[in-house]
């Protein structure tokens, strides 16, 4: 009887020891040394996994940050600059100061401004509609209004306004992750510098047709007249292919150009009411 007990103990201990040795050797052999800083950096990242940095998720971005010698090219659109500077401290690397950006919809063609000339009843996808034809209005550049940008936004920062049939960005939620910019088949959405109090001045049109044609398809189209160009004192406006463009970095938000525009294609958003207008009313 005691034989059985002793034999069992010896056998089990021998098996245990052998397994322990094997496990020890295997663990040594396949040991993955991971930089502990990756975890630290990941802690600081927003964990949104939006892909805005161009890498598959925050972990991959943290690894890239740790691996790279120069991290000034690596940018997380979601992180605040404080978080990024904390990361820079952890890694002991220099980091470039980045301006916060915000997505801007460059089309103002509401149904009143841009009449429907056909009915589209195909698949509800902007990419599909765009590949089939110019869309329900006559403007081959304008928003199709099927909300592919809304679908891709991970932060609920963009929604379709049912009145204007155009997407609208909620500035506080927008992280400038670039997803909507990529999703829009017409390249209507642009990332622009975020200004104080979310003030914005931009050309809300990307129609490159000649003035008359553009105007015919949409009442608020940029007709490429160049009046804004003359009004600008900071050389922030350029005119190319019958279309004006305001450089977000050069623009000082002086509000000289919006009243010049004959088609009201330059909106001014989140500004206080103009003095003259306030007096008149």
């Amino acid at each position, binding site marked *: 009887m005691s034989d059985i007990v002793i034999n069992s103990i010896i056998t089990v201990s021998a098996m245990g020891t052998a397994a322990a040795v094997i496990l020890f050797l295997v663990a040594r052999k396949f040991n993955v040394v991971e930089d502990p800083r990756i975890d630290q950096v990941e802690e600081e990242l927003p964990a949104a996994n939006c892909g805005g940095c161009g890498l598959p998720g925050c972990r991959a971005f943290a690894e890239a940050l740790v691996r790279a010698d120069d991290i000034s090219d690596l940018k997380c659109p979601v992180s605040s600059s404080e978080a990024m500077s904390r990361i820079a401290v952890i890694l002991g690397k220099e980091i470039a100061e980045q301006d916060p950006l915000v997505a801007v919809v460059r089309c103002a063609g509401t149904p009143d401004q841009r009449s429907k000339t056909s009915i589209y009843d195909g698949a509800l996808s902007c990419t599909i509609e765009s590949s089939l*034809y110019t869309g329900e209005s*006559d403007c081959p550049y304008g928003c199709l209004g099927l909300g592919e940008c809304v679908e891709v936004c991970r932060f609920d920062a963009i929604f379709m306004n049912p009145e204007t049939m155009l997407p609208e960005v909620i500035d506080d939620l927008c992280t400038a992750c670039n997803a909507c910019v990529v999703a829009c088949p017409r390249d209507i959405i642009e990332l622009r510098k975020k200004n104080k109090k979310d003030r914005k001045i931009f050309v809300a049109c990307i129609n490159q047709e000649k003035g008359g044609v553009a105007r015919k398809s949409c009442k608020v189209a940029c007709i490429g007249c160049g009046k804004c160009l003359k009004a600008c004192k900071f050389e922030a406006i350029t005119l190319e292919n019958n279309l004006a463009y305001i450089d977000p970095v050069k623009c000082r938000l002086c509000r000289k150009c919006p009243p010049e525009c004959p088609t009201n294609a330059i909106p001014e958003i989140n500004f206080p009411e103009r003095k003259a207008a306030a007096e008149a009313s």
Partner: protein
Amino acid sequence: MIQTFPKGGIHPAEDKFAAGIPIRVLPLPKTVNIPVSQHIGAPSEPLVAKGDKVKTGQLIAKSNGFVSTNIHSSVTGTVTKVDKMMDSSGYKRMAISIDAEEDQWEEGIDTSKTLNRKISATGDEIIRKILDAGIVGLGGATFPSHIKLSVPRGKKAEVLIINGVECEPCLTSDHRLMLEKGEELMVGIQLLMKALNVKRALIGIENNKPDAIRHLSSLASDYEGTEVKTLQIKYPQGAEKQLVKALIKREVPSGKLPIDVGTVVHNIGTAFAVYEAVQKNKPLIERVITVTGKKIESPSNFMVRIGTLVSDLVEAAGGLPDDTGKIINGGPMMGKALKTADVPVTKGTSGILIVPSDESRRKPVLNCVRCAKCVSICPMGLEPYLLQAATEFKKWDLVENERALDCMECGSCSYICPSGRPLLDYIRLGKSTVSKIIRSRKQ
């Protein structure tokens, strides 16, 4: 024996209203807009500038690359514009606009109606002339014909297949061509056989065109190796791979061409254009186009100069009916709706269809009920419901593995779906995205 392809297929209403109406020559248009990209492949390069005088049949844009072809002026007159103009999708593409003054043909073109049976050109000369004349597949795919005829090294064509199926509902242009230009077609087929160096040609015609079958059969008895085969009525039998399967019982493998199984397929319209190019030296500047619709006054088949505006064609067929919901460029299955009628017809336009408004809208989209009708009718053996969902949720690897690229966009799945789901719309998007991914992978 009546043959057909075994897998899938549908039977849409035929509605071939213009089948009994002879081809009429449309009066010369006042102005033509000739797009420089009327074919698959690189757009042709314009050779004329604003103000130039051109003659009918003069080369105005030359082939630009291997997969490309020539384009000729279809009228005599002055070039008014070489600029971006609206095409059938509403987008602006490069085109040449010519104001027609008279009809003076370029020298060397035989405009007489006499039949020229004697074939003097060699195979290479025939292929050369087909490129010079700018001939593309007139069935609708508009693939440059000279490339199909230049058999790659290591492959051999055994039989030529002529596509007289015209399975697309409403269209009758090939049908009329077979009835009225039968002799010319036969010579065209002989020319194609010579170019390919084959001894056998099969003409596939569906048995809803018994008059064409009878007519061509009697003509074919005079020509050695040419045979007319009767096919069961089934859409999409006019698709290349389906026709090959129906006629010679060979399956073209996924991603391959008919030449890989020893055959080349050409359309009836192409055979006629080849006859005119080689025997009459006449470039491809006109084609037969059906203008039809339930409410239109006189459904017709017109011989139309390329570049004529669709509105001119509709006018000649009795004008746009009051109750018009849609103008379709092509047939009801594969055609595309036009945004306006002020766009030109191109080499690939086989018909203009006017749809009344009560038939022009799609059914409301409901959920997929898993009835698998789309799976059972897909002639390529695909699973359209799956491809649609995979595309909608951007699972591109699944789209690729489910062979989206085999889809020929016949539209049978969207036609049969009881829930009115936009299957083909999504599959098209899946196809274009997957081919983009594959191209980027190769780089």
